[in-house]
């Protein structure tokens, strides 16, 4: 909302200083977004009179003017053709500035000196709406009263101060000059100079014009008021009115349209003016539109109405979309003779839905949808009629239509000073509270506080507390500490996730954040089978675009996209991880199951075992039982020979593998990519018992090596298990130290060597004990078809 300070001063005698004003209003609850002075960019433009116009000796299209600017006469060369001797014009003198950062300097034009520039409307940042008698392409010939040499901004009234407010949705009353003026008056504790409009009726009877006015949709229209104005003389509005509209960011059009806009800006009540001759049958009905009805609105758009849209209809058809926009043909034109002024109160939600449905948010709908009080209709309608008379724009027919469907019952709240102070943490005297409320327009009857009708936001004692607090000053409320006890604890699950983050960082993986939604096409990119459960995503009905339209059921595409971005930008390597959420669809009526996963991805300078090493370290820190990596070849996104499902005990907790080359290619990554994905909840469930202290060993350990020849396909993990089974309790640790293929090893075979440590807690192991254990291990290994080499 842009507020004209000139307009404001009509209601409050304020000594305006921009910065102080902005600060004071912001701190009392009306946030100032910015402030400007009109014409701030214009300087050095003065009024001049054309003394003579002579041909330019060297240019056919230029003329040389001698311009009297009061204290001297300037020679100015111009190309304008609309000038004659005696014309009063704006003169941008040497060194002056114009909107858009333009600077005017004296110079020579085709050899003739020119000491400035004569300005057009546009060059001064004005339009025909501001000065309808001027022309658009040519010098602005001024018809205002003025003196030569006078500052043109003053003469043309380009000197208002404008303050831009951010109005919160609970205060539609502040979307008006009067509303803001009341706030200013309360803030500065100055009187609000109210004005009660007076209507001068010319006789006749409104009912002779409006034969029938009725409200069918009484649930959506709380009040409908109308008056008729006849003998309309469409003309431009007077300058003061145009200036105020311009300062408020509204383009002046003609007196009748300007009046409705002026009243809306001043009172916050949207008005509408119908051309009476287009109100068929002189009948008005406020009703829901019928299916199949349509209307061409003022902006030229053809709108198909539905029964959800409230409309103003005449005998035959809709003539306005209620509270949003009028119909094109029933608008005000130069031939308009009689006008129907509408001042009504519509249901906010209904206006909001309709405006949104048609995609036409107007100044009118923006006000209605926040909820306007029906009491406002009359003052606004009276003001419009008062302006008609003032402007000599027409004659107001006697009588007024007023159909009410609301209860005029003010909100009364009991002031509980003690509660208020306890709630705010203040010590404000009750008398001061009442004084503040009076200032804000509340009526104080003992402890009963009656809210003014325009404060639709007041309904609870907490609202009264806020009113008192904001005028008393939020910054005057003392800062205190919360009483009572507090925990401040992190849950075990939260600690668990924190540890995962810490370990992955220590393992060299950087943390990422990716979108929760993605394109359903990603499922094709990761080669998910047609019937895969993964494709059953929760779908957004109003996505920004297809690429963010489904909630991911797997974080794999997010990781692949991120790795692809890095690869594409020629980053040599990337090692990334995220604790990501996957959204598992549980049916249309249910919230999805949100599963946290750890996803780690890498390319460049890495391999399967590097990632596996990071995971093994993670499992160790998390105190998971030793995880099993079981080869799998049926995961479509992964390399069939380089992928493992990961088990903690019997529970599957995740997957690790090289991404299938086809998938990597789908993401345009020309490198081996490794991705691990682990379910956080499954890992958390698998956490082992808390580790207890174990006595440090008292007896010496014995180390043995076993080297063997076995089938290429035999997993080394099986060999390790066989040794462990054979050796039994006295196995302290076991380590793979060599796998060899090549010369001296037959095709299809490999040589595998394990080193293991034996130790007993009950005594030094004898040679016999050790040999027995090793022999048992060998027996187990032979069952696997391994051939011991040493």
């Amino acid at each position, binding site marked *: 909302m842009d507020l004209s300070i000139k307009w404001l001063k009509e209601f409050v005698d304020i000594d305006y200083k921009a910065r102080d004003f902005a600060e004071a209003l912001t701190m009392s609850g009306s946030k100032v977004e910015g402030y400007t002075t009109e014409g701030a960019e214009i300087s050095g433009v003065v009024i001049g009179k054309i003394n003579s116009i002579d041909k330019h000796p060297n240019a056919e299209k230029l003329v040389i003017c001698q311009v009297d600017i009061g204290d001297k006469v300037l020679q100015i060369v111009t190309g304008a053709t609309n000038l004659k001797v005696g014309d009063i014009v704006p003169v941008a003198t040497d060194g002056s500035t114009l909107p858009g950062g333009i600077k005017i300097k004296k110079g020579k034009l085709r050899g003739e000196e020119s000491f400035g520039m004569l300005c057009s409307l546009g060059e001064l940042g004005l339009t025909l709406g501001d000065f309808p008698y001027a022309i658009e392409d040519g010098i602005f010939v001024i018809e205002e009263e003025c003196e030569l040499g006078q500052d043109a901004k003053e003469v043309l009234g380009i000197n208002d101060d404008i303050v831009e407010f951010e109005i919160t949705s609970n205060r539609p009353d502040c979307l008006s000059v009067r509303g803001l003026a009341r706030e200013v008056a309360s803030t500065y504790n100055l009187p609000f100079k109210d004005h009660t409009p007076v209507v001068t009726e010319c006789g006749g009877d409104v009912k002779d014009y409006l034969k029938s006015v009725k409200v069918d949709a009484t649930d959506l229209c709380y009040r409908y008021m109308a008056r008729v104005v006849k003998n309309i003389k469409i003309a431009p509005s007077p300058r003061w009115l145009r200036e105020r509209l311009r300062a408020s960011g509204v383009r002046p059009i003609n007196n009748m349209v300007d009046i409705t806009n002026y009243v809306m800006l001043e009172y916050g009540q949207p008005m509408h003016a119908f051309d009476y001759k287009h109100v068929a049958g002189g009948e008005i009905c406020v009703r829901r539109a019928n299916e199949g009805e349509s209307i061409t609105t003022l902006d030229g758009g053809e709108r198909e109405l539905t029964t959800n849209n409230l409309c103003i209809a005449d005998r035959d058809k809709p003539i306005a979309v209620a509270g949003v926009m009028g119909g094109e043909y029933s608008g005000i034109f130069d031939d308009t003779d009689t006008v129907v002024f509408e001042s009504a109160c519509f249901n*906010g939600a209904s206006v*909001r839905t309709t405006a949104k449905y048609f995609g036409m948010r107007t100044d009118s709908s923006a006000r209605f949808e926040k909820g306007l009080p029906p009491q406002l209709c009359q003052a606004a309608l009276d003001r419009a009629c008062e302006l008609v008379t003032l402007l000599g724009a027409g004659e107001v027919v006697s009588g007024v239509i007023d159909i009410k469907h609301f209860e005029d019952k003010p909100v009364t709240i009991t002031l509980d000073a003690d509660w208020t102070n306890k709630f705010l943490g203040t010590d404000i005297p009750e008398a001061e509270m009442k004084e503040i409320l009076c200032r804000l327009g509340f009526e104080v009857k003992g402890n009963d506080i009656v809210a003014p009708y325009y404060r639709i936001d007041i309904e609870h004692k907490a609202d009264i507390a806020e009113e008192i607090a904001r005028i008393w000053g939020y910054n005057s409320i003392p800062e205190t500490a919360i009483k009572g006890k507090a925990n401040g604890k992190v849950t075990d699950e939260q600690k668990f996730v924190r540890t995962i983050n810490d370990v*992955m960082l220590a393992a060299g993986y*950087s943390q990422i954040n990716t*979108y929760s939604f993605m394109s359903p096409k990603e499922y094709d990119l990761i080669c998910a089978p047609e019937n895969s459960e993964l494709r059953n995503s*929760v779908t957004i009905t109003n996505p920004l675009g297809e690429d963010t339209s489904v909630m991911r059921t797997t974080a794999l595409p997010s990781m692949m996209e*991120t790795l692809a971005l890095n690869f594409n930008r020629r980053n040599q390597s990337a090692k990334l991880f995220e604790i990501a959420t996957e959204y598992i669809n549980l049916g249309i009526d249910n*919230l999805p199951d949100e599963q946290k996963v750890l996803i780690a991805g890498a390319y460049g300078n890495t391999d399967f075992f590097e990632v596996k090493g990071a995971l093994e370290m993670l499992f160790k820190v998390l105190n998971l039982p030793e995880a099993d990596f079981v080869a799998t070849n049926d995961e479509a996104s992964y390399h069939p020979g380089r992928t493992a499902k990961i088990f903690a005990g019997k529970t599957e907790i995740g997957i690790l593998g090289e991404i299938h080359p086809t998938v990597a290619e789908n993401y345009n990554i020309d490198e081996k990519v490794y991705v691990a994905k682990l379910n956080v909840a499954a890992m958390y469930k698998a956490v082992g018992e808390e580790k207890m202290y174990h006595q440090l060993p008292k007896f010496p350990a014995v180390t043995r090596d076993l080297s063997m020849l076995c089938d290429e396909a035999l997993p080394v993990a099986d060999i390790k298990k066989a040794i462990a089974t054979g050796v039994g309790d006295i196995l302290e640790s076991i380590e793979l130290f060599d796998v060899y293929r090549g010369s001296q090893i037959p095709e299809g075979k490999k040589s595998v060597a394990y080193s293991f440590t034996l130790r007993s807690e009950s005594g030094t192991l004898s040679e016999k004990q050790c040999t027995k254990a090793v022999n048992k291990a060998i027996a187990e290994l032979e069952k696997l078809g391994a051939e011991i080499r040493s």
Partner: protein
Amino acid sequence: MKEQLKNVAISAQQALESVKDQQELEALRVRFLGKKGELTAILKQMGSLSPEERPVIGQLANETRAQIEAVIAEKSAQFKSATASEKLRKETIDVTMPGSKKAMGKKHPLNLVLDEIKEIFLGMGFDVAEGPEVELDYYNFEALNIPKDHPARDTQDTFYITDNILLRTQTSPVQVRTMEKQKPPIRVISPGRVFRSDAVDATHSPVFHQIEGLVVDKGVTMGDLKGTLADFAKRLYGEDAVVRFRPHHFPFTEPSAEMDTMCFNCGGKGCRLCKGEGWIEILGCGMVHPKVLANCGIDPEEYSGFAFGMGLERLVMRRFNIDDLRLFYENDQRFLDQF
């Protein structure tokens, strides 16, 4: 024999004086003191001496041996020290060579600051609560005093799954769920992802993070709100941080406020960073609306509370001078490596 001993002493003295290294020294030790050495050879003749002479010569022989041994020991120490010095000299390295790379991963800047904020609130006695990101309309709006068709819904453009299920536009539903589950006293923060249908540009993202907080107990005041949040600002920005609270409107709090900090850049005078205002908006807050408490089964006559919420991305952008929000969700390794 006396003469012989003297001669050995002299020749040993002379030989030892010119010895060059440990090896030569050892050879001399063998030559003079060894089993077949010169001194031993002389001592072997002791048997031929008279009982009177024996102790005299014996003492002299011992003295000679001790003398030689002392010199050898001294020389040996000299050589060892020289060798050790030489070894150290040879081991000299260029300490300005770069350290070997330790490939630690980097925390995402959003998480870096989020963790810091969590720590601050944990230290102030707040628990950390979590809740679903795909949420019921009821928890995201209705329970928070934002019925269907409320104009406030326009300011939070919402992604819908169905009429009743949506992507949460704020983390406030977690507060409602907390209040439903837990009786006061309540002191929680709820950090997390939120979603709004804003097209992606340098300052907008359809996914971003909020940190909201809630305190409910008997006798919680607006003064407590101010004290707690001013304390938070000091813990986050340092003791010098100056804050102000100005009135605002949220449907779920009454009174409502926004907290600004004085612009760090210009100290309140107004500059480009703070758009000339001298203040930078940090968070929204207010006393929990009595209707919201009642919706959650908490008697507003008995209890009161305050709530607050802030956007993480904007905080982090200001903190690290990041000018484009998209960088957070691109996750370029070179970007991540900077923090």
